[in-house]
């Protein structure tokens, strides 16, 4: 096995036994990035010397026997909407193109303190608004399994980097599916934790009641190790929850006897790609062979997930993106403006991309006087019903299983002219954010064209453990079917 093919777990063992050094691994990955990045455009900023310095510090810890975290010395990629001190953080937007944060976000700080090595920042849809990683000032990220196709988004760069072994693990963020869907399109594992598990301090806000940072990794064990480092109460995030963070790897027993897997009938709809459906049904059979029990459940408000999500998320975004005004940081229009108001208008028009502007417009409209009740408030009410659907369903099952996306990765440019078509792809993921539940995607098959298909597993509030248990058991049974790009 080449060094870059290693997992977090495998590498941790080798680093601890001093068979290999973090510096060697980091050099190997930096070399691989320099060879492959122009083909796929996963990274938008690559750290060279700084990464090697971090690696050398990690090696010192190993030499002294002072290592407590599985992430020590492990080279990772960070999505470019997470503030990293001294490292440019752009959100793939002109408006932050040269922004260098003076601080680390909490999740980033935790990784840094654990001794992780930051290889660089990854490509994404601008301000996390998108499902394809095409809406980026750096150009699209390309799918490792077919370079003419998208990686999914908005955490496409991170998912791509993991799939291409251009990092050992990565972080992403998920507001409506932005970790799970690219993980599905790129054949890797990705998880959105329960809302409140991972601090949002330092995550550039898109929709504050929906955003969560989460891990993207090569397998479920790695996912669990990375998740554990990221989780934890943070007084700097007033939406952070003071919940115990278990050792998530303790759930990875491989035993799912008697586990009740809810299969929501509303997710097997007309638009579901036949190959995706087949892969999921095979997945159900795999679970049943291992002693799990499939239970049909109903999530009646499923079809309203998209309008509810796109009204709430865009409304929150219109508020969160009001701060980009050219005053304190970021881009300011060079056109000479006579007044502050002119400067605001020009800065924001020139600085934001089309999709971002569209969503700000949509959100502003939904919140504006005369429309607030019909759109925003109505959406919030339906959100209550969507959430209740899940609470009711979880009376009858322990985890819920669905396809992650209705179809595999589409071609670059195929959906950019029709924003609504693009939004509809999020149908299986957005309700999870609206409810705030934990959810992951893992590979469950490939189409005849060789494109990865992802299975989504959802759990009860703060029950990441059961979700990971189910995912691990499935992975153990299907390991041999996994293909590298």
């Amino acid at each position, binding site marked *: 096995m080449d060094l870059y093919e290693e997992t977090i777990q495998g590498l941790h063992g080798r680093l601890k036994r001093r068979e290999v050094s973090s510096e060697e691994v980091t050099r190997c990955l930096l070399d691989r990035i320099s060879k492959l990045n122009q083909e796929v455009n996963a990274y938008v900023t690559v750290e060279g010397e700084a990464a090697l310095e971090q690696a050398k510090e990690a090696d010192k810890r190993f030499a002294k026997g002072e290592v407590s975290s599985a992430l020590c010395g492990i080279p990772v990629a960070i999505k470019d909407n997470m503030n990293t001190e001294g490292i440019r953080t752009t959100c793939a937007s002109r408006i932050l193109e040269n922004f260098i944060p003076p601080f680390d976000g909490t999740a980033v700080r935790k990784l840094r303190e654990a001794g992780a090595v930051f290889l660089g920042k990854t490509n994404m849809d601008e301000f996390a608004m998108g499902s394809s990683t095409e809406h980026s000032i750096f150009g699209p990220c390309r799918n490792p399994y077919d370079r003419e196709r998208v990686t999914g988004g908005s955490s496409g760069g991170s998912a791509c980097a993991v799939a291409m072994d251009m990092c050992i693990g990565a972080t992403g963020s998920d507001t409506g599916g932005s970790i799970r869907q690219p993980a599905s399109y790129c054949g890797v594992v990705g998880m959105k934790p329960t*809302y409140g598990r991972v601090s949002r301090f330092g995550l550039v806000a898109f929709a504050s009641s929906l955003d969560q940072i989460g891990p993207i990794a090569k397998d479920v064990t790695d996912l669990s190790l990375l998740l554990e480092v990221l989780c934890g109460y943070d007084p700097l995030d007033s939406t952070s929850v003071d919940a115990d963070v278990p050792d998530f790897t303790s759930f990875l027993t491989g035993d799912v006897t008697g586990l009740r897997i809810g299969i929501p009938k509303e997710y097997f709809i007309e638009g579901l790609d036949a190959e995706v459906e087949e892969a999921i049904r095979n997945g159900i059979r795999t679970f049943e062979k291992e002693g799990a029990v499939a239970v049909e459940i109903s999530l009646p408000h499923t079809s309203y997930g998209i309008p509810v999500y*796109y009204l709430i998320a865009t409304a929150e975004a219109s508020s969160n993106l009001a701060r980009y005004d050219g005053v304190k940081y970021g*881009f300011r229009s060079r056109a000479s403006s006579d*007044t502050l108001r002119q400067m605001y*208008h020009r800065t924001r028009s020139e600085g934001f991309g089309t999709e971002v502007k569209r969503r700000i*417009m*949509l959100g502003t409209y939904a919140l504006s006087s005369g429309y607030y009740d019909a759109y925003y408030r109505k959406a919030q009410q*339906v959100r209550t019903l969507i*959430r209740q659907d899940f609470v009711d369903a979880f009376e009858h099952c322990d985890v819920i299983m669905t396809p992650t996306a209705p179809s595999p990765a589409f071609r670059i440019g195929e959906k950019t002219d029709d924003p609504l078509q693009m939004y509809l792809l999020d149908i299986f993921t957005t309700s999870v954010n609206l409810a705030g539940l934990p959810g992951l995607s893992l590979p469950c098959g490939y189409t005849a064209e060789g494109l990865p298909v992802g299975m989504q597993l959802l759990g009860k509030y703060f029950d990441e453990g059961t979700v990971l248990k189910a995912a691990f058991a499935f992975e153990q049974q299907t390991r041999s079917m996994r293909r590298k790009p």
Partner: protein
Amino acid sequence: MFMKVDRKEVEYVAMLARIELSEDEKDLYSEQLSTILDFFDRLKEVDTENVPPTSHVLDLVNAYRPDQVRPSPGVEAVLRNAPDRANRFFRVPKILD
């Protein structure tokens, strides 16, 4: 063709959002927002009588912290990304017309 969101509304919303749109963008957004909002109209089908709105999924209320002074980055760090500065201030065009 009836546009749910016509040009005038687009201009108004853009003004609220402090964004300047080109003439083409106004037409584009008028069309796209109309299509999107038409689709979202299906929410009317849902009976939400007596259903409370959810603004937040957790039961957190009033997340306070003690009123204690803590270290902060300092003026230089904060001004470092300023597009235009004058001494310890951010410099901007005049506010009033």
